[in-house]
């Protein structure tokens, strides 16, 4: 990999009939990077991952994975990548150990040979190795699927929404596992609809409606947020939202947990806003300036686009 790039994507488009799932995608992923593809369902994440894993042909454009062309050299790509699709693709009637054994055999290796690589993850489910995969909890299925996807020591690991439908604790654990895998030198390409997971990646691509909104490090994405962002707290978020939307100075306002995140048109005096809030009955409202998170940025980029 003379270029130091694990994945190079050039002008990839994918159309299904008249539906444009992907439009002109361009970016690259460095060796050993943890790269996040972040966007809601239907944004085109799965199509892109399937193209990069040689499972789909792009309508136009091309891509290089591990130095191999995804169309011409698909056989070579399949030897060097690991792939975990959106559904945990396990054989539910096979036990934990039988699943792992089978996938090891498919790649011409054995559990023993690469045990070190998966030890951290697999050891957590090893006590249940005789249980059928269908009877595992969601978190355990996820760990087994990950073990299966890595058993052959891939150079690049593709994970399609590994944390969807998984509770917050299991999600945290999963990202810790990914960190450890990354530290072993494996490039990770992971997609997720959860914006908060962006901060755990080295770099991210934000994707919406088949186009890339931005590609950068999470820090730089946040820096690119060009308006001061305020957080306003009030007892009743519903009325707070309504009142702020009625205010002409408001540029964008979104609920964020207990408070709202808001940007104003240039030249707005924040004291005027506070006064307005007191007047509309938000007696104990509290306004402060904050650093935006990825989700703020995503919404801003989305609004700019449309």
């Amino acid at each position, binding site marked *: 990999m003379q270029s130091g790039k694990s994945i190079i994507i050039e002008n990839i488009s994918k159309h299904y009939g008249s539906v444009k799932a992907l439009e002109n995608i361009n970016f690259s992923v460095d060796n050993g990077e943890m790269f996040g593809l972040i966007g809601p*369902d239907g944004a085109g994440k799965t199509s892109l991952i399937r193209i990069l894993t040689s499972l789909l042909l792009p309508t136009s454009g091309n891509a290089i994975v591990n130095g191999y062309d995804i169309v011409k050299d698909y056989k070579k790509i399949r030897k060097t990548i690991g792939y975990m699709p959106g559904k945990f693709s396990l054989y539910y009637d096979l036990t934990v150990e039988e699943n792992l054994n089978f996938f090891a055999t498919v790649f011409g290796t054995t559990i023993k040979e690469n045990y070190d690589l998966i030890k951290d993850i697999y050891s957590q489910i090893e006590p249940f190795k005789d249980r059928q995969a269908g009877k595992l909890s969601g978190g355990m299925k996820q760990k087994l699927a990950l073990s299966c996807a890595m058993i052959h020591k891939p150079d690049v690991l593709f994970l399609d929404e590994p944390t969807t439908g998984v509770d917050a604790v299991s999600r945290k654990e999963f990202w810790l596992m990914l960190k450890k895998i990354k530290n072993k030198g494996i490039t990770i390409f992971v997609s997720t*609809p959860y914006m908060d997971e962006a901060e755990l990646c080295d770099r991210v691509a934000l994707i919406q409606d088949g186009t890339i909104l931005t590609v950068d490090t999470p820090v730089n994405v946040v820096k690119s947020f060009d308006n001061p962002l305020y957080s306003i707290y009030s007892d009743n978020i519903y009325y707070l939202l309504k009142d702020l939307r009625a205010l002409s100075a408001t540029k964008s306002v979104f609920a964020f947990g207990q408070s709202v995140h808001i940007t104003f048109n240039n030249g707005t005096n924040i004291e005027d806003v506070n006064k307005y809030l007191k007047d509309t009955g938000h007696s104990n409202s509290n306004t402060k300036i904050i650093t935006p998170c990825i*989700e703020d940025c995503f919404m801003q980029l989305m*609004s700019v686009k449309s």
Partner: protein
Amino acid sequence: MKETIITVRNLSKKFGDFIANDDLSFDVYKGEIFGFLGANGAGKTTAMRVLCGLSKPTSGDINIAGFDVYSQTELIKTNIGYMSQKFSLYEDLTIDENISFYGGIYKLSNKEIKEKKELLINKLQLNAVRKKLVRELPLGWRQKLAFSVAIFHEPKIVFLDEPTGGVDPITRRQFWDMIYEESDKGLTVFVTTHYMDEAEYCNRVSIMVDGKIAALDTPVNLMQTYNAKNMDEVFLKIVRFS
């Protein structure tokens, strides 16, 4: 005083030796947005099924909108709405057909269905696409429509099972706007979610661990009690250390 609309006392549900719900007791108030959180496999789905009258508890007294879960399940069903991420609308029917179908299920008259349908379609601005199949709608729109259909028969309580999974952040907030609006009108909303910021939108939140309710309070109080700066931390602390 607050009017109670869901009363749960000592709810237990067992499957053989396995205890899915262990002695749950809580109240939900009218017009409240009640967040029902928990790790995967903690027993949320089981409890939700019992509350919707879909399965009988092993023991306990449960009253939903004034009706008993053992003897009045049919009455419960006409007084609640239900929507889940996985299934809520028929993808191979049009928007029009879906609304009429659900109206029909809840025995609304044809006239009523027609009138309310026009209102709903105008409100959601779906007039241009009303003859399209639901499968052709973007996910966010679909979920908003599904929510509207779930409350089409004006139930007292609506149960939402992970309604916003995978929806983009802007549409997700529009979805919550709809929830706020209905709750303001008096609808009780019982919702599960994996997004912790959404947990903060709820009036009160319960967190289930291993079949039991480990915590139940307003988000602000929970954050204080657990000395956490957001619900995400609260959740982590409770689930990991209980």
